[in-house]
């Protein structure tokens, strides 16, 4: 048989399978719909997982190489200034940044803001110029330079509700009076993932709000130019200062990837029950041939079709059905995740906070997801259809036609 005749023969078989399926559309539609839903859920979970992991990998580039915290009684406490000096002396360390940060809970809004202390004068000159929309104020009012801040977009939207989008009043229990902070700028949309719940305060103001004494810091960020040295220096810090804990960027990345993987696998495992039920349905549908179908196969065999040919028809039917469902399921999932931003599913992955960014997931669709989707959805489906297909194909024509 030449290649051409093989090709033509297969085309005829496909043609027959298609006609066959169209004639029994009511039976196939149900299977198709369930199949599409299954592929849709599996691929949505994988797409979200893929994009979040990628997003996290990109963002983690900005993380410090090592974060150093002081641990006392198993809990994190403030770190002292001298520690930073000692760490800076370790060969290989380029810089140690002393960080001042914490959270502020606003009761009326029931929102938690992330507060970060920085020197805002430096920011105004530096690279932040491009990512911040600066506000200008008339200069006639006396303002305290320590009480200024830049806020994220999400924060500003919330503050508008309580009409504090120009100045925000901080209050902590135990204070005699409120402290008002001027909002001098907001972060632009493209930094939403990191900046949405952020308030960047002038460092002295931040100390005040966080009630952090001078000479103490929340933690240290250590920067190391040579990535090969990171693990060794982390080890060195732990040896020199037994009271300090080091977290490297690699560790943070791994644990995030672990968490995303764990979450999606958890969703998928709960879906396995659904897949199993679907397979039972398929088995049932495929083995219980209707009288008409039986007669049809009987006639086909009577006019000279052999078992292998009937099997091929069944195989093509399965392949066409799973092909259509996979393609539509994947396309639907793509639209759901990247256009509709995966309502309902995304929350499982990113957390629960009220102010969490409504960021758009960037598409990261790879050939590898296709392999996984096929393995989870299509392979079990085809496997389940083999036995009933064979059972239908081997029955003898006389038995079928006479309806025994």
């Amino acid at each position, binding site marked *: 048989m030449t290649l051409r005749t093989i090709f033509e023969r297969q085309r005829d078989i496909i043609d027959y399978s298609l006609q066959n399926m169209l004639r029994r559309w009511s039976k196939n539609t149900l299977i198709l719909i369930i199949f599409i839903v299954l592929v849709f859920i599996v691929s949505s*979970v*994988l797409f979200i*997982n893929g994009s979040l*992991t990628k997003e996290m*990998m990109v963002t983690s580039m900005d993380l410090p190489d090592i974060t150093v915290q002081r641990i006392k009684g198993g809990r994190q406490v403030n770190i002292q200034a001298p520690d930073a000096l000692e760490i800076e002396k370790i060969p290989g360390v380029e810089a140690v940044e002393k960080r001042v940060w914490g959270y502020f809970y606003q009761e009326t809004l029931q929102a938690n803001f992330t507060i970060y202390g920085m020197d805002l004068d430096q920011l105004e000159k530096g690279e932040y110029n491009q990512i911040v929309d600066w506000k200008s104020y008339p200069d006639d009012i006396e303002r305290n330079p320590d009480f200024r801040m830049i806020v994220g977009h999400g924060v500003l939207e919330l503050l508008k509700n309580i009409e504090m989008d120009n100045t925000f009043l901080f209050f902590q229990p135990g204070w005699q009076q409120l402290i008002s902070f001027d909002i001098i700028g907001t972060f632009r949309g493209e930094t939403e993932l990191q900046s949405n719940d952020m308030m960047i305060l002038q460092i002295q103001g931040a100390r005040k709000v966080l009630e952090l004494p001078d000479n103490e810091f929340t933690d240290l960020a250590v920067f190391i130019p040579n990535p090969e040295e990171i693990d060794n220096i982390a080890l060195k810090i732990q040896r020199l200062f037994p009271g300090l804990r080091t977290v490297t960027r*690699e*560790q943070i*990345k*791994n644990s995030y*990837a*672990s968490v995303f*993987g*764990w979450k*999606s*696998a*958890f969703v*998928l*495992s709960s879906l*396995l029950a659904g897949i199993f039920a679907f397979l039972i349905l398929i088995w049932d549908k495929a083995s219980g041939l209707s009288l008409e179908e039986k007669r049809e196969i009987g006639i086909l065999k009577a006019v000279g079709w052999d*078992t*292998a040919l009937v*099997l091929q028809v069944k*195989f093509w039917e399965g392949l066409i059905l799973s092909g259509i469902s996979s393609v539509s399921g994947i396309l639907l999932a793509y639209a759901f995740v990247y256009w509709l931003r995966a309502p309902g599913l995304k929350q499982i992955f990113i957390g629960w906070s009220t102010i969490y960014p409504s960021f758009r997931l960037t598409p990261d669709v*790879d*050939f*590898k997801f296709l*392999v*996984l989707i*096929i*393995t*989870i959805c299509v*392979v*079990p489906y*085809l*496997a389940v259809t*083999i*036995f009933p*297909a*064979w059972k239908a*194909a*081997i029955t003898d024509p006389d038995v079928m036609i006479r309806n025994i």
Partner: protein
Amino acid sequence: MILHPWILGLAVGHSTLLLLFSLCVLNAWQIFRGWDYNSTGENQFLLEKKTYLISSIINFTLFVQILMLFLFEITADELANVLPGAMCAVGTLSSNNYGFLLLNLKIVSTFVYFMWLVINYLDNQMETYPLVKKKYLALILIYPLPIMEIILFFKFAFHLDPSVITSCCGSVFNESAKGIGGSLANSSASISLSLFFCVAFLLLGNRYITCRWGRGHKRLGALLEFPFWILFFITAILVTISFISTYVYEMVSHNCLFCFIGSQYHYYGVFLYFSLFIATGAGMTGGLLEMITKPAILAKKARLLQKKMHTVSFYGMMLFLVTGFWPFIVYYIKTGRLI
């Protein structure tokens, strides 16, 4: 143990495979026991029908097996994100004792399924199914392969510990490293290249001589193809580690077998390994087909199929050579020197 979508996918795939294979072996056993071509009883009739089931299942199994080989490599690559210290598939595979073992087993079983299918195809062309008992016995004998695979897979998955620091490909295939990977990389490019081309010329020379000489030598030459192709596969992997990879990555120190499979290198590895697998699979099967001598009409058909296999393996080898040495040629033309 890591609960991860990829691990889950592999678990689903392996379970499906084993389930189907078990169904197959059950029927194969019945055929093996009760086959009698001259009988006209109902039982023989049913057994003949069962042969269809078995060939459909093994066809499907081969397809899934190839898919799983891919999936396994992708999984290893993906899990490198989760395991500390692992930078690509090698790190994941070597994070416990089972990873590379499982990969090797997978490659072996892919070839075995392929060869079984070709023999099955040949046998099905005959009305009397002369090989039926032998091939179903073979099927029962290879049943341990999928069982071993699933055991190794679960051992591998359970022993994946996200807190163990693993070695990355830089250190596994590093020249100063001890162990098999290191000594493979250490065998300098010139040695592995000459080994590889020796085997390749041996293969082609053997074929040339076989074509020219008489019947007796012909048989020996064709039988020799089987071990030669295994050697070819091993030396090809060796050359990939010590020579081809350096030119793909354009780095002397990077000798990884897996990094170039992904989209980062435009799926270069997919083409490379595809041609290698096709060549080796077809070549080995060609050697195996020589063992079929009785009955004469089957032997004749076997020779015909053998010829086809020889052609396929030849073109596969050429494709491998072109794909494998393309980066080297491009590099040499661009820079006018070796790495």
